[in-house]
């Protein structure tokens, strides 16, 4: 297998959203939307994914920037870089959880060019899949990771369905916790999808990680005012402190009134193919005092039903600890 040399493709650099959508729709499965390229070029250089037509979105200035919305929420253009999000005062002030999550992605170099759209729409990181094997996700008929000897330390605790890859995005759990809306434009017009529904598991479509259909562009993420300025907790545990994907991450938004948790949304990264909404935890802690006992209960409840693979059962105590911390230390 020859790697590390991009194969040729035709490059389009439209300057309008409509132009981009038209091009993507015209070439369908053979087309590829390109933003910062940090995920895409990996695939291209390894010659594993070989689109014939690449549509560079970075000329679409309308997809840039962070704006306040009328309802007090915030709209983030899909091409906004992770560095901009990390350093934006509006985000830092109202949704620090997102600034924290963006700031923990990869490395400064990648955050400088990596876009929020690309971060949310990025592909699975299962090393077998990335290596270019003919697994289910790649259209084949086997999974190398979900076997007795498979090297699956980074893989899922929930949602195994022929594929055991996890959601790799650091910002995705934060978006779910914030109940963000994904604004999508495609050949058939516009639609808005809740963050929680934006990500899909192998049970729905094993070859995709999001609901984006060929030809569709994620244009913006809208974060409602509901959670602005509430109590947040984000933590990502990885082997290294930078330039590394999460082993497990946790994102929580909560409103604490009189010492009690009155409202909460919580999601975990890297334990399922989608950011895992921890609804059970939310139910367990809602209305409870924000204290150590509640935190411990939360931790315990978070791992119920986890089904580890051979090399990843450490994710059970790790998730439990992170959920505990999210309640205890937020």
């Amino acid at each position, binding site marked *: 297998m*020859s790697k*590390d040399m*991009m194969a040729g493709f035709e490059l389009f650099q439209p300057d309008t959203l409509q132009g981009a959508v038209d091009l993507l729709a015209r070439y369908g499965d053979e087309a590829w939307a390109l933003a910062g390229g940090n995920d895409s070029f990996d695939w291209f250089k390894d010659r594993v994914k070989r689109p014939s037509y690449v549509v560079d979105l970075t000329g679409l200035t309308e997809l840039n920037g962070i704006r306040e919305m009328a309802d007090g929420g915030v709209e983030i253009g899909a091409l906004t870089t992770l560095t901009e999000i990390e350093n934006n005062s509006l985000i830092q002030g109202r949704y620090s959880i997102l600034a924290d999550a963006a700031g923990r992605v990869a490395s400064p170099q990648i955050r400088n060019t990596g876009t929020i759209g690309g971060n949310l729409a990025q592909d699975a990181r299962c090393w077998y899949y990335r*290596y270019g094997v003919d697994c289910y996700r790649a259209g084949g008929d086997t999974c190398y990771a979900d076997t007795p*000897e498979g*090297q699956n330390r980074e893989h899922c605790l929930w949602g195994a369905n022929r594929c055991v890859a996890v959601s790799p995005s650091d910002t995705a759990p934060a978006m779910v916790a914030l109940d963000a809306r994904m604004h999508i434009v495609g050949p058939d017009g516009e639609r808005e999808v809740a963050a929680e529904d934006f990500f899909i598991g192998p049970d729905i479509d094993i070859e995709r990680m999001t609901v984006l259909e060929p030809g569709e562009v994620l244009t913006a993420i809208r974060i409602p005012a509901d959670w602005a300025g509430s109590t947040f907790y984000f933590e990502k545990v*990885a082997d290294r402190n930078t330039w590394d994907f999460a082993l497990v991450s946790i994102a929580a938004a909560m409103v604490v009134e009189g010492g009690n948790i009155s409202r909460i949304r919580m999601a975990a990264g890297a334990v399922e193919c989608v950011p895992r909404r921890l609804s059970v935890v939310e139910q367990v802690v809602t209305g409870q005092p924000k204290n150590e006992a509640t935190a411990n209960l939360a931790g315990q409840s978070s791992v119920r039903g986890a089904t580890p693979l051979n090399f*990843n059962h*450490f994710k059970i*105590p790790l998730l439990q600890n992170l959920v505990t911390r999210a309640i205890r230390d937020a």
Partner: protein
Amino acid sequence: MAYDLIGKNFTPPDVAAKVTGRAKYSEDFRPEGMLFAKLLTSPIPHARISNIDVSAALAMPGVEGVLTADEVRQPPAPGETVLTNEPVFVGQPILAVAAVDEATAAEALERITYDIEELPFTVDPLESLYPGGPDAREAGNVANGGIDLQQIKWSAQDFAAAGEGQLPEGTPADEWSYGDVEAGLAEAELVLDETFVTQGISHHSMESRSCMAFWQNGKCHLHASVQSQSFATPGVAGLIGIPMEDLVFIGEYCGGGFGSKGAAYPIMAVPALLSRKLNNRPVMLRITRHEEYYIGSARHGFQGRVKMGFRADGRLLAVDLYIVQENGPNTGFSDWHSAADAISIVNTPIAMRYRGIPVLTNTPPRGPQRGPGQNQMAMAFEPLLDKAANQLGIDRVAIRRINAPEADWRYGENQSPLTSVHLREALDIGAEQFDWAGRMARNGQRNGSKVRAVGVGQAYHSAGGAGFDGLVVITPEGQLHIHTGVGNLGTYSHTGTSRVAAEVLKCDWQNCVVMRGDSRKHLPWNLGQFGSNTSYTMTRTNYVAAMDAVNKLKEIAAMDLGGSADDYDIGEHRVFRSNDNSVGMTYAEAAQRAIELGGRFDGHEVADDLNPMTKASAAGVAGTGLVGVARDNLEQVGTVPALAAGFVEIELDTETGTYEIIDYLGVADCGTVIHPMGLATQTKSGAVMGFGLAGLERHIYDPQNGLPGNVSLLQSKPPSYLDVPSVMHSAAVEIADPMNPIGAKGIGEPVEGCAAAALVCAISEALGGHYFNRTPIVADMVVNAAAGRDQSHGPLDVNTA
């Protein structure tokens, strides 16, 4: 002794080019008409390739040629091939295509068809030793330097006898012992019997092993990324199949090697052979990051077992060591032997037995990596010293002090002497400067989920050789040219050791030029830049060459100005009468006289004991000045030991399995310090590499299909800036080695091992004395240990997640 240059910092002559980007690495050259080559590599771990059809590739516009395994020399198995039709690991090069650009070459590779027969493979030595287990090569499963490729299987009884989780101890391929091990263990107050695993990790040098070659006037010009200049040259010529004088070998800069570029390596031959086939057109072979993980070599992994018997005061009475070395598919390196020697030197067991076996696996070729064997052993052994200390109620530094070697210690199989050992002094300096006692007071202290802990580690590597040559020229302009054949690994020791010649000749450093990096620069035969040896070996060669020049200066002065050579002295670029400074001549004048005198004065006649390479280089400079050239025949009795002690403090979070390294101090026993800044950098950067070895860098090979799980820096996880303290500390014992004219010995390798060991020890302490007996200790293992859960891997698993 007070020196003018030795022990002082200097600006290395190549540093400006490096920091400004002007430095040209082999990949940066672009001669006119240059072609690019790309490699077809094996997709599976063991295969037979046949019916290769390159016609469609050759028919493509822009494709200029192909080089196949049939056109290159094949070493006897299990040697490392240039190209092969029987690949024994994923990524092994099968053939190369040359084209006008890389995109075309890559397209061409996809048009090549071949038949591939899958052969049995293994990624686990114990699997291969089990009766009926797979062999990595058709001709056998055991080999190493001095051990012919053969098949060895252990019996099922051997495996059963070991018991669950313990290393079986079947027939070894080599063994030695000294003293009465049985008696030592019987007499011991405490006996530990521990099975351990250390991983083999990739070298992942930042500069991959790209190379470019062309032929001109019958000579092959090769630009390559090498640690060693002179030492690598004969091997490179051999790979290409030409006499050494037909090779122009250029390796001015090297972006990291860590042992993997110490000598000639096979892929260098590809552009040279392609160029010759293609009418001498220059050919560039850029080795990709993936390929660097395939052919860039990796450290040997160990599956080991050690029994240790301690006296009540902590003195180590006996050690019984067994090492199964994961050998990779080829000859591999001597890590297994070095590991045993390291124990014998660092921990001085009164009796010791060593047994070992190198077992082939279908994983990347293994080669020496910084502290090969010694550093794996340090990570495995040092925490067990802690375990014993804790059980015996002895301080952890104290147990190391009591077992530290004395000056007259004899080590290993041959009970060999050592030139100078000051590990105990290093421990004392470290304990003092690190405030071991103060920090121990808070060792194990908890703050929420976080625990503070300290660790101490030690390591060894042999650090010097003898018998190589030095060459200096005093020019008629009065300059001193120091010709050095050491490589440019990035330590600046090419210049640090050259300064010894300037010191001996009392030259102003501004008037000195270091000649290096290109075989046309008339370089002497020097040992390679590896094995922590440069500081010791090449201070000696430069010393003897400079002394030869001093003697010739005095002889010339005596000849022209009267008296005998003994009546003369040197200083300020002059040779003058000791009792009358006004009678003398400048170096420039003396150099001019040397040229007039000819013969041995200007290099036309040289000593017979010089290496042929040095003789040729001397002939090259002959007539250009006063030539000092000599073989290092200085006395050397004993092994030169580089020793180091590392001290680390961490804060470990039991809830996340991660930790912060709060402080680090490395203390070197390296004799006279030649270059303080260089030493400090080595001590700290070695520690960074050690932290990666101990705590981050995994080596994953899927046992189902032999595929590598780490073919990128992202997947391999060397430490980042944020994983190590931004301020670290270094110190040195600074006691001169008696066998070196300036008292220097090397240090490059143990400064990694001591840090790795110290970190493993600190992690174990933070977990209240939990000994993993495995490296690297990654977050999942810490989380499991802290949560009281079993580990995912079995005690003897290798290459696993």
